[in-house]
């Protein structure tokens, strides 16, 4: 495998390309009459060097979208590319390598291996690949995230915010083409959450990193460059340079529609989606 991290040197001008792309991305669970469409022919471009947030009510398919883009889940139909690589159709082993070498992950909780120290957790993906991290870059990331005096600690000895910072460092240190963050602030208090969002923002602005974050918190989404709104498996809206208030307003409309649908007693998916699109 070439060194895609090098191809994607940080600091390139933003929006100079597409980090990930999906066309007609469809994901169905079950089959026949009981089939549920989690993603319904989604087209999306994740622009390189930008901070994209994916929002939507629970069950809207936002986590599924992230899983499919990251090669964690298989798709029912459609195509997904990471950079120039079409990942739909890659084999399990190739997908594992792709995640290891070209993607960084942050999850809501249980981000770290409890038996490894913070330092070992940070370099884990590169260790697994048998590559040595660039020492200068590693030092820079550790200092940027303020983890210098926490490196020897085990996860159990770290606070929630510190744990997420370690996860963030892990995602950054291999200079992946894309970082996926799934509700990274979901389990944190607001101060620690803000800190983590600040680091992600910094990674995009100062290091040219590409970040996709799934969240349901409008405050978190406000740190992004672009918010994609997902509902019932479709991208129904997007918002550039969002503010918390605007996002909240937009989200309220989902709730409003839902309430209206429930009021009229017509709870089918189709009507719900129509209602949103009309709104």
């Amino acid at each position: 495998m070439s060194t895609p991290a090098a191809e994607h040197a940080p600091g390139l001008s933003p929006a100079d390309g597409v980090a990930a792309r999906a066309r007609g991305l469809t994901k169905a669970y079950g089959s026949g009459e009981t089939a549920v469409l989690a993603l319904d022919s989604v087209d999306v471009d994740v622009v390189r060097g930008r901070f994209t947030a994916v929002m939507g009510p629970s069950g809207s398919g936002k986590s599924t979208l992230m899983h499919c883009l990251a090669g964690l889940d298989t798709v029912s139909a459609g195509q997904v590319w990471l950079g120039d690589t079409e990942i739909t159709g890659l084999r399990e082993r190739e997908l594992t390598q792709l995640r290891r070498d070209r993607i960084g992950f942050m999850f809501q909780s249980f981000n770290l291996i409890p038996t490894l120290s913070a330092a070992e957790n940070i370099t884990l993906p590169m260790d697994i690949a048998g590559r040595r991290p660039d020492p200068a870059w590693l030092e820079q990331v550790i200092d940027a995230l303020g983890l210098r005096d926490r490196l020897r600690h085990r996860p159990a000895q770290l606070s929630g915010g510190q744990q997420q910072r370690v996860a963030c460092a892990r995602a950054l240190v291999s200079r992946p083409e894309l970082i996926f963050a799934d509700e990274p602030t979901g389990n944190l208090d607001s101060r620690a959450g803000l800190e983590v969002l600040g680091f992600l923002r910094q990674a995009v602005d100062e290091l040219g990193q590409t970040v996709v974050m799934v969240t349901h918190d409008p405050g978190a989404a406000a740190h992004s460059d672009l918010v994609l709104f997902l509902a019932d498996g479709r991208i129904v809206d997007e918002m550039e340079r969002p503010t918390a208030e605007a996002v909240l307003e937009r989200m309220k409309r989902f709730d409003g529609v839902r309430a209206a649908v429930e009021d009229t007693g017509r709870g089918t998916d189709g009507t719900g989606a129509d209602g949103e699109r009309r709104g």
Partner: protein
Amino acid sequence: MLRATLRSFLAHKGRLLLSALAVVLSVAFVAGSLIFSDTVSRTFDRLFASTAADVTVAPKDDFGSRVATGAVRTVPAALADRLARVPGAASAHAEVRADNVTVVDAQRRFLGSTTGAPTIASDWYVTDRSPVELTSGHAPRGAGEALLDADTADRKHVRIGDTLTVMAQPGTLRVRVVGIATFTTTNPGASHVYLDPRVAAAKLLGSPARATGVTVQAAPGVSDAVLKQRVVAAVGAGAYDVKTAAEHAKSSAEQLGTFLDVIKYVMLGFAGIAVLVGIFLIVNTFSMLIAQRTRELGLLRALGADRRQVRRSVLTEAVLLGLVGSTLGLAAGIGLAAGLIRLMGAFGMNLRAADMVVGRPTPVAAYVVGVGVTFVAAYLPARRAAAVSPMAALADADVAGVGRPLRTRAVVGAVVGALGVAALAGCAAASRTASAASLLGLGVVLTLVATVVAGPLLVRPVIRVLGGAFPALFGPVGRMSQRNALRNPRRTGATAAALMVGLALVGGMSVASASMSASFDQQIDRTLGADFVVQNANFIPFSEEVTDRVRGTEGVGLVVRQRFAPVALRLPDGRRVTTTASGYDPRVDDVAHVTYVGGGSAAALAPGGIGMDADFARDHGVRLGSVLPVEFPGGRRAALKVGALTDQDAAEGFGMQGGVFLGLATVERYVPGGQDTALYVNAAAGTDADRLRPRLERALNPYPQVQVRDQADYKELVHDQIAVLLYLVYALLGLAIVIAVLGVVNTLALSVVERTREIGLLRAIGLARRQLRRMIRLESVVIAVFGAVLGLALGLVWGVCTQQVLALQGMKALAVPWGTIVAVVVGSAVVGVVAALLPALRASRMNVLAAIAHE
């Protein structure tokens, strides 16, 4: 609550499966050994009861000695005529039966059993109680004909018309097989040849006027007891052993009983190992299940279940497991017994599986063991479950595998361990065998308990070392596997304990047996001076012709014969010691290097002389020149003068208390008709020993019952005999390993489930399936090797202490079989790899997304 318990039992049945297997194995061995020994003893009771004559008259057996002298004890054949005239006797038969013949076929193949069962030649005398019947051919007529038993005929492919050579004490006879006799009941494994009753006594006993016993049948209406009284009155009390059918059956069964007891104890030993190791497995499983169900149990408590109910719920689950395991184990035990019965058939003992006896105690024992073991093993985990607070339901599920402090274990382990070490030290310092052996037993048990208790404390330091190279060798995968093994020391300790117990036994036994071999080697080097020893493997005497042949071989110089004789010594300290004496020809000093403390072989081997071990003599107040009253079988007595005191280390080890020896002429005089047990042969001056050997072998070709051995061969023979002990140990090891593997599989499988999210995370950030499998495999290996190292260390200590006890019996050499020990460590790593196969596969098949989402 019961419904919740049942639901939980069924929900976890997959995880309980391995525990159930451990229960099944333990119960199967308990039930199998009981069924087998019941079946065997029932079969033989029936055989002896149905075939014994109403009254049997035999030569007086005042010694009870089993040593093979080669002499056949006889009664006058005319006794039968006298007894036939006793009132109430219907008939009397003079029985001729030689238990120590050798039968060889035309190709000079040995027809006897290779397992040490006797070859018996007797007269062909059929009554309604005979255990055999003629199934083909005709009864033997005259000196040239014989019958052979069907089992031997089948096994050795002998047919009617074949010629056999029968070597008996008076001489060799060649006979043609004219018929096959088939056992109508069970043949205990011996080979039988039947001769014409008119010639049997002359050919087998050397005189037509002798018999080995008389069987008397009662007339109708006369009870065995009454007939016995009249027979005793007729022959005089004390002259012969007179037994009724019931008494005869009982003493026959007792003789067989010692052999069957060995099998029974071996089987129960297996059962013990299975139970012991199984307990670890069950404790571990229940502990892990309860750790996983902490929230569920907390919820039950929050909903109002009290501690007793929670505890009872877990114990009910254990009892259910025990019941299921016992039932399956009972069935497996029946299968095991059937297998053993078939195996005995391969050794010539024909038992019929159809006669299998499942006595009432068997199922009782099966359920008591199965349910009892499970209950006991689950008791502590159940108490721990009851201690779960209702808050556990509300708290976040904590990361798997947080251990509680091990302080209690440290204290108990240290105290018990100190006591155990003290006992072992005492055993090593003891000077008397009996007290040393009991201290050894105590020390073994205490140190085992201490190691099991303190095992979790040893996990950290030992695995740090064992897995120390893992990060360097296997990178992050190695690092994680080492840390995973360290994660829950209690669990790792318990899992490894199962393996440890078995390997400690193996380590101890292999050190002991290697030391025995080495001691015998030293002994042989020191004492055996002859170029060759002619004897058979089982110390069974052989006929005079062998001796003649050896003497007649060109190039043979000195031949010193050895013969055994049972003796009872009346010692100056008032004790009467029954032992086995060896009789030697003069010039024994030319074939053996004996150290004389006082006197010499000339005086000891002269007529009226005797020699013995100096230590034994000192203990009993015997001095050089003492005159001791000595009793021989058949009521013969002599006063023998002590002519030599020797320094014999290993005499006791050979089972010959006192190391008593005397002249062969003396033996011949007091135990007439004996046969030689060994010949020590030196090449004649000017003849090369290497040249002599093929000549000796050629000369002895017609006598496959004896072999020519030089010093090296002789050592090998001793090693082979010790190796039998080792095979038993290896079989125990095999069983212990099977159960230990189940334990490791169990632990890994549950750990994999517990670490589902962690595994999901690793897979998400790019750990390949192969790497994940390797991680689990390495964890398994490190646990297994930990158990092996602990077990072998313990076993080495035991072995060294055992050798100290053996040293008191003259086995002074200590040998540690390093090759075996290294092989066991390597083997345990393989065991680890095997145990990890399924859990690793399962982990690598885990769906990444499901694993991440796992709560």
